[in-house]
């Protein structure tokens, strides 16, 4: 639930990437494109432009290159609806015929780029080796050169040939395909079905044709739409500079001809500009729409999976155990009082999906309250709601959260900033991803202390070093100066604990604080938490799926399932006499799991050994 979904950055044509390639949706892509308003519109525009170019001789009777001296810059007349250009040529016929050459030139560049890029990408990605090294280097080289400069230099050698210029430009653009195909092929070449095909004795050529080309087809089509737009633009640019072949009518040549006459006849520039702009925008929109459709198909699948949970039930009875000896001794003030809390997430179709229903909790000073359940049971969401740190789209939809009597369920970020890091603290589950990789460990400890306590940097540094020593880090100074990637997971978790207790909080929320650690470190971290709890007399909410941890440290436990609390009471009572079927199943499950794993774990507890995380 806390895992960020990978984001395909928009904007760059090179970003289509393997994420797309991994799921080929080609069969229905075209069909869905026709149903999408933007996709259909772009397609219609492109078809119209192409048809007007192909049937230019039928649409106009005039020769695009026939210059009539008497009609230079002449106004529209019968049979010449767009008038005449700077050399007395018919503008409409030039515009139509120009479509032929401009589109053909762009198509040439696209085909050259695709042929070179796809073939080299396939070979390099499938076989790797020296070819990979060389082609990767060449691709980097081509991408680092300003295309227009190369085309200008080429123009000096080969003269004003549009076809040659577009061929060379195709070569310059080939890395765009190369990188795309390379990434896609590298992603699938080790897939099981490719291995299976190899074992079955299929030749490499057939494997590439059958299994790999199908994967890269959709991204290559998308890339082609992008590349064609770029080629139209650069071709027009070259010709606008006057470096094109003046004997063929193209949109760029029309611009070159019209621009000097911009004060006398603006329309000479407007027509080719409109043609280039409309075609380029249609190509880009088409590419974007195809990409969106491909991405959405993946997203929909994910969402469907997420909603296959059991249907929400109405109010369920909570099995409550009576206090035992240990919990009767907890007589501190009530610190946190959660009443009938519900949490929902906004969905893209404007509905709200409720993930936590009617959860109630009371936590007193000095109490360790365990929230236990499978992943997805809503325990982490409850913890985030208390901190006011629900992920984007999530919010409290009902009930109340009172902290020291103050209602905070709908508190603003500003109000929560006066509690977080001062009275409340949080220890996350995954140590590495919870440290900012760009800053030293020390600065991440010092910065919040300077902000929340208004102390000097030197004071905060001293305090941070003391804390690092307190949580059992052998060389605090070295860890203080280190970056997160330079320390181990266990060290990082200690750093996070140090950060959490740096404000001497009243309420500590620990979200699976030991799950990501290996077994020996787990025990040490639990010991540390217990001693800190004694030292600061905090209230602790411990989110976990591990009954071992519960038995070890918790006073009271609430068992959560599908966003509801199903059973609550003293830890020992629930541990020895569970009443809810789910609790029993959970306990049996975990005991069984521990039993099966026991010898493995205690046999050789390697430092990197990790037990499964939820």
């Amino acid at each position: 639930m806390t895992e960020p979904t990978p984001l395909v950055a928009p904007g760059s044509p090179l970003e289509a990437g393997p994420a797309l390639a991994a799921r080929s949706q080609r069969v229905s892509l075209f069909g869905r494109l026709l149903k999408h308003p933007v996709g259909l519109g772009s397609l219609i525009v492109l078809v119209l432009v192409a048809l007007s170019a192909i049937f230019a001789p039928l649409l106009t009777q005039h020769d695009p290159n026939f210059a009539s001296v008497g009609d230079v810059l002449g106004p529209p007349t019968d049979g010449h609806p767009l008038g005449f250009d700077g050399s007395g040529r018919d503008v409409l016929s030039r515009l139509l015929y120009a479509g032929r050459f401009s589109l053909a030139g762009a198509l040439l560049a696209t085909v050259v780029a695709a042929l070179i890029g796809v073939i080299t990408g396939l070979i390099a990605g499938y076989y790797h080796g020296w070819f990979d090294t060389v082609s990767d280097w060449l691709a980097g080289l081509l991408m680092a050169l300003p295309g227009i400069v190369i085309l200008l230099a080429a123009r000096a050698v080969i003269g004003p040939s549009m076809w040659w210029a577009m061929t060379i430009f195709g070569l310059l653009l080939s890395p765009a395909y190369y990188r795309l195909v390379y990434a896609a092929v590298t992603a699938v070449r080790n897939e099981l079905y490719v291995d299976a095909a190899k074992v079955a004795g299929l030749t490499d050529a057939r494997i590439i044709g059958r299994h790999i080309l199908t994967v890269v087809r959709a991204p290559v089509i998308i890339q082609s739409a992008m590349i064609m737009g770029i080629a139209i633009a650069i071709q027009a640019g070259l010709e606008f500079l006057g470096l094109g072949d003046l004997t063929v009518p193209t949109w760029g040549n029309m611009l070159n001809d019209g621009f000097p006459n911009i004060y006398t006849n603006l329309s000479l520039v407007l027509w080719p500009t409109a043609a280039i702009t409309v075609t380029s925008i249609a190509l880009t929109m088409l590419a974007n729409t195809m990409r969106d459709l491909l991405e959405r198909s993946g997203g929909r699948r994910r969402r469907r999976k997420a909603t296959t949970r059991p249907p929400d039930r109405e109010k369920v009875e909570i099995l409550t155990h009576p206090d035992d000896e240990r919990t009767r001794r907890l007589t501190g003030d009530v610190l946190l009082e959660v009443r009938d809390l519900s949490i929902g997430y906004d969905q893209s179709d404007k509905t709200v999906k409720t993930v936590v229903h009617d959860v109630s909790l009371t936590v007193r000073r000095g109490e360790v309250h365990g929230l236990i359940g499978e992943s997805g049971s809503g325990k982490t969401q409850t913890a985030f709601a208390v901190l006011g740190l629900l992920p984007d789209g999530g919010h409290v939809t009902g009930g109340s959260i009172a902290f020291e009597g103050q209602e905070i369920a709908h508190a603003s970020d500003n109000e929560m900033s006066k509690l977080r890091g001062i009275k409340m603290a949080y220890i996350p589950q995954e140590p590495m991803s919870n440290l900012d990789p760009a800053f030293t460990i020390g600065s991440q400890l010092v910065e919040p202390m300077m902000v929340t306590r208004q102390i000097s940097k030197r004071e905060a540094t001293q305090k941070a070093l003391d804390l690092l020593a307190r949580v059992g880090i052998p060389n605090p100074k070295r860890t203080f100066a280190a970056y997160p990637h330079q320390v181990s997971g266990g060290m990082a978790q200690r750093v996070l604990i140090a950060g959490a207790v740096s404000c001497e909080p009243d309420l500590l929320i620990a979200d699976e604080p030991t799950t990501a650690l290996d077994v020996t470190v787990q025990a040490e971290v639990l010991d540390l938490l217990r001693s800190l709890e004694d030292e600061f007399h905090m209230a602790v909410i411990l989110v976990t799926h591990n009954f071992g941890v519960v038995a070890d440290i918790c006073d009271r436990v609430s068992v959560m399932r599908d966003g509801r609390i199903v059973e609550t009471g003293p830890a020992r009572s629930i541990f020895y006499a569970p009443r809810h079927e789910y609790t029993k199943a959970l306990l049996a499950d975990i005991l069984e799991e521990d039993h099966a794993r026991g010898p493995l774990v205690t046999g050789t507890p390697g430092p990197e050994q990790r037990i499964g995380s939820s």
Partner: protein
Amino acid sequence: MLMFIVRRIVAGIVLLFVSTSATFLLLYLGSGDIARNILGQQATQEAIEAKQVELGLDRPLLTQYVDWLGKAVTGDLGASWFTSQPVTEGIMARTWVTLSLVLGATVLTAVISVALGVWAAVRHGWVDKLVQVVSVLGFAVPNFLIAVALVIVFAINMQVFQPTGYTPFSESPSGWIATVTLPIIALTIGGIAAVAAQVRGSVMDALRRDYVRTLRSRGLPFNRVVFKHVLRNAAGPALAVLAVQFIGLFGGAIIVERVFAIPGLSDIGVTSTAQGDMPMVMGFVVVSVVLVVVVNLIIDLMQGWLNPKVRLS
């Protein structure tokens, strides 16, 4: 860090060497008729041969190349075959003009893209839509067409800016601003399209990271986390796109300068390629590649500064 810098510099030198060598060999292979072009169609065979000797074109290609390279390393790029003007002299003055446009556009692109991208990522809503529309338009519409549109709207219809020409900064700062504003805007729109979309994407990505929640749980206000931690982590991918954009802006400047009649590298590039003035074309290529290499090096150094993993490995 030192090794990192050295590696990047060596890679830049290799790129410079390979690309200029390839260009030289290709250009000079195709320079057969150049003496006739210079002297005109009426020139006698003797005069043409004499000119070829004068230009050194009678020597083997490799000798010409080694000669050119030897001088180029010392900063001597030869002289124009048509005007006899030293190449470095002709190119240097114009390089500053082009560079001022490109750097102006790069800085403006970076500033606006960060502002728009962060806003779109954090606030969503209409700014988010705007960034998406701008990125489609800016990507699809070539920047010289934006330049033409700007000339039509601001210089011809509204007469706010001078449509064409260039006033050096040293002559009149206000005149300089009046002449470079429209070209820089024309270049910037395309740049923003790509970079703002990338900033938006990587900020959204960074916002979802676990450490953002953890830092906020320690009492840091949201805005402080965004501007210090999220932005720093999002800067890497955005800088990479900015580096690619710089190359694109440089190419775009060549064409946009033409629209506004600005005497930058475009002038030299276009004239010398049309004439086949090889020393000038070579000088143009060398300067372009050097600029790209230097900018990439600067961006690499910034990446190293931003990302401790790069710096410390």
